[in-house]
């Protein structure tokens, strides 16, 4: 009973994945191996690059990066608005992130794909759904950098 009450009072925005932190400002975290490789995980048993079982440290990741490649998705799951841009973003820490690229015209990008490669982008927190308890689910997405 006590647990249910606790859950009921903890309403509010929820990150879509545990690697996404909403506070103090929205940012991603990674787990860094002593060999320098960063994984988009909150914990690791071992490093899949060097095989070390530790030590690992949690690191905050930059909210700015550059587009490696992208695709414009025209056919997707029911309820997903298309077309949208799926993108691989390289962060300065040496790790890459997959997400949506928003605030851009997908059709324009198809006409001139070279414009997308290397594009400077920044992380933006967007509500993408409400969960079963009614909490807003917040995703990390990217948009063309404003500065």
């Amino acid at each position: 009973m006590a647990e249910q009450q606790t859950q009921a009072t903890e309403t509010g925005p929820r990150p879509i994945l545990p690697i996404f932190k909403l506070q103090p400002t929205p940012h991603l975290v990674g787990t860094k191996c002593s060999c320098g490789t960063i994984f988009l995980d909150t914990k690791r048993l071992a490093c899949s690059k060097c095989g070390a079982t530790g030590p690992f440290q949690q690191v905050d990741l930059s909210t700015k990066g550059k587009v490696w490649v992208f695709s414009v998705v025209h056919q997707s799951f029911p309820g997903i608005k298309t077309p949208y841009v799926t993108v691989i973003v390289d962060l300065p820490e040496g790790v890459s992130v997959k997400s949506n690229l928003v605030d851009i015209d997908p059709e324009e990008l198809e006409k001139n794909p070279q414009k997308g490669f290397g594009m400077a982008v920044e992380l933006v927190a967007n509500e993408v759904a409400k969960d079963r308890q009614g909490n807003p689910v917040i995703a990390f997405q990217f948009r063309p950098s404003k500065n």
Partner: protein
Amino acid sequence: MGNVYVLGTGMIKFGRYPDKTVPELGAEAALIALKDAGITIKDVEMFASGNLYQSNAMIGQRILQQVGQTGIPVINVANACATGSTAFREVYMAVASGMYDIGMAVGVEQMGKQGLLGGGGGGSDPAYSTEGRLGSGLMPAVFGQAGMEHMRKYGTKLEHFAKISVKSHKHATKNPFSQYRNEVSLEDVMNARMVAYPNTLYMCCPTGDGAAAAILVSEDKLKQLAGGRKRARVAASILTSDPYTDRTLQLPDVSTLTRRAAQKAFETAGIGPKDISLTELHDCFATAELVHYENLGLCGDGEAGKFIDEGGGKHPDLGGKSPVNVSGGLLSKGHPLGATGVANICEVAWHLTGDERCKERQVPNAKAGMAHVIGLGSACTIHILTV
């Protein structure tokens, strides 16, 4: 390791068989292979079945329940799109090791009109599903981006990818086992509905049903059973998984494991890409075929666009060179996941032995052929066959 030969092969036409079961489809291919080999199930000493979507359902044993239950060892294999070719490799290793003289591999799949593959996440509450919210894990987008990497590095155009689809469809018109046998023009491909840029509808393989089987024998058994028939030798059977590379955890790297497999396969077979008469490679999307031209050494790095423009990959009858996917490839012949890897090897074996079943599309004077498969996640097999 002893020499291993493909004694018999069986394939059913790829398509849709809603009234049949997976074991039935597999059994049909197995029976054709037995007849082709000129042996019975009583001669077969071990069996490997490749099927992905019912990998927990003992498909291998259920195939033998239709073909003949002789009590032999059966292995059920699942390895994404490389499922069938991995089953083939299990049989290859069993025979090469000397433990068995005759083994059979069957690859089979029933997908029906299943839609897009891949994507997902989110656990029990769909509000946390990542597909379309944190980018796409759907196959057309994943492989689309493999093509985009090539576009980024080398300025490759949409037309290059489209030309591959035109070629594959043209090839398929000569293959009665192909799910689709219609020709498409460059305009048809370029103007078709976009699925995930740069892959339009005709640059994506279909889903479907199919089965293929191969019977492998030792050199001693070949001498007893071949009866003067020309049979292909398995000169290399290589399996790799994806090593850690930058970005591969976000965008599967389909190139590095293919390059490693190709290098090992050529070393093992003692030949090079120039010696390959025909290649069946994993063109799940047109973008994939383009990058694999380079990964398999059919042309140099950055030269895939030029290779296509100059008729690379086309059947010699169409004025091409280094023929690729003369079966129609996954794009036209179809891609019933578990069947694909065995079917590709059958196609290569047929050309090397002048089999009736590839008469209309025979690559002239074929001496060596390569069959390549990628299962995303990832697994890569390369088989080189020679005569």
